[in-house]
């Protein structure tokens, strides 16, 4: 069943996606690896795919997890910042 969630982009992901947030319709339940793949493909983040944290409603998402997404869930895409 597809749901529409909000994706939030931070740091380099924001730069590559060209926006700070987006609505995204996706199948649920979905495995972590499929979710990452769908997001990086859709928002041109391929080069960051092994270098980011995903958070669902501000909670760390485990790489083995199967996620049950609900409408309006927030998924944050967080690569590390290194400047200072």
């Amino acid at each position: 069943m597809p749901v529409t969630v909000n994706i939030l982009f931070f740091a380099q992901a924001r730069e590559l996606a060209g926006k700070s947030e987006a609505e995204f319709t996706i199948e649920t339940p979905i495995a972590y690896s499929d979710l990452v793949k769908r997001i990086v493909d859709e928002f041109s983040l391929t080069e960051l795919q092994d270098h980011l944290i995903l958070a669902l409603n501000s909670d760390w998402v485990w790489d083995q997890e199967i996620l049950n997404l609900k409408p309006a869930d927030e998924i944050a895409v967080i690569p590390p910042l290194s400047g200072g």
Partner: protein
Amino acid sequence: MSVSEDTQQLLTEIKRLREELAIKEKHLHDLQTEPCNCKYLENNDFTTDEIIRYSRQMIMPQVQIDGQARLKRGKILIIGAGGLGCPAALYLTSAGVGEITLVDYDEVELSNLHRQILHSENDINIPKVQSASDKLKNINNNVRVIPLKVHADSNTLSRIIQDDKYDVVLDCSDNVATRYLVNDVCVMNDIPLVSGSALQMEGQLTVYHHNSGPCYRCLFPVPPPPHTVTNCGDGGVLGPIPGVIGVLQALEALKILVQLPDVLSGRLLLFDGSTTTFRNIKLRPRNEKCEVCGVNPTITKLIDYEQFCGASAHDKVVNIDIITFAEQTDVKDFPQDLQNNIVIDVRPELEYKMCSLPGTFNFPYSLIIKDCDKVRKFVESKVQDGVTDIYFLCRRGNDSQRAMLYMKENINFEAVQYHNIKGGLHAYSKYIDPSFPVY
């Protein structure tokens, strides 16, 4: 910029006066901090002046005299005396931490001053750690501030850590390699690490290796490819962003020293200055399979972090050389005749608008490689006008080489010779006209 004789004389005199001042201040400090046997104080840890100075935090139930005593016994190591390190060190010094060691190899530059708030105009070209420790000593002479002008690498950092027992380390560095290095050092020596970072309008903050929380490698086992990493020199940063994060680094360090609960461990704070929002992300616990903090670590001594990250441990740009010698033009041979020669400046439009050489044309590199039709049409029309030589120019002479290579491969005209202005606008400012701003 050339320094006139008067300026030179003044600089020398100011330097001498500073040294004289430092000697007198040290003398005064020694006199003021002689052990007191004040009959009104329960223990002799503090002088009357110290009690007055710290009273506003000591009367808080969270701190009290015991908390202040812990601060006074505390030793903190700060890696980086820049946008994060300055505000962090400022608050830690003011709060009365016993000893603060600053590590930074750089000298103060004019382009640092909008965010690195301990440095002033008079400090240009002085080591940052020197400039910072001078200011800090003025603010609180009770604190032992140790400036170390060294480049933080595996050798220097393991020596620094061995020489002293630090209670907390602050990562206020500006590059990925140093972040992995500082993380591994802290895990191996079992020291909590308060890690801050900032770029453009965003900041991140967390505490690694504290209360069985994760380390940097638990979250990011693999360093990002170097070309995806933007530094402040290229991406820019608004001063208050590292200001906010640096101040919060000081807060977390104080909480750790005083032994307050709810330190930002196992959580990541995201600060978005563009919307002024803070967000707390719950992180994973320590990864038992982590290469450095896991149950069976495979990294048990420091490695070569520049090699590991494929990037240098500083935020300076490394110059590339990807075109032939004949295609390189020394900036001293910068074309005078801009009728028969064309100069294409490939910097981003907003940088071109900030400062540019008259008579040049702006075609940003990012746009050339995205859609080269516009630049092709432009070059075509110029060729019809009889132009035979096209020069590429950028900030440092790297992107201009990339643009030139791309043009050679995709838009080649028999009648046209492509050239690269070696060293870019930095070289122009250095050898032709210093009034062109180096940024």
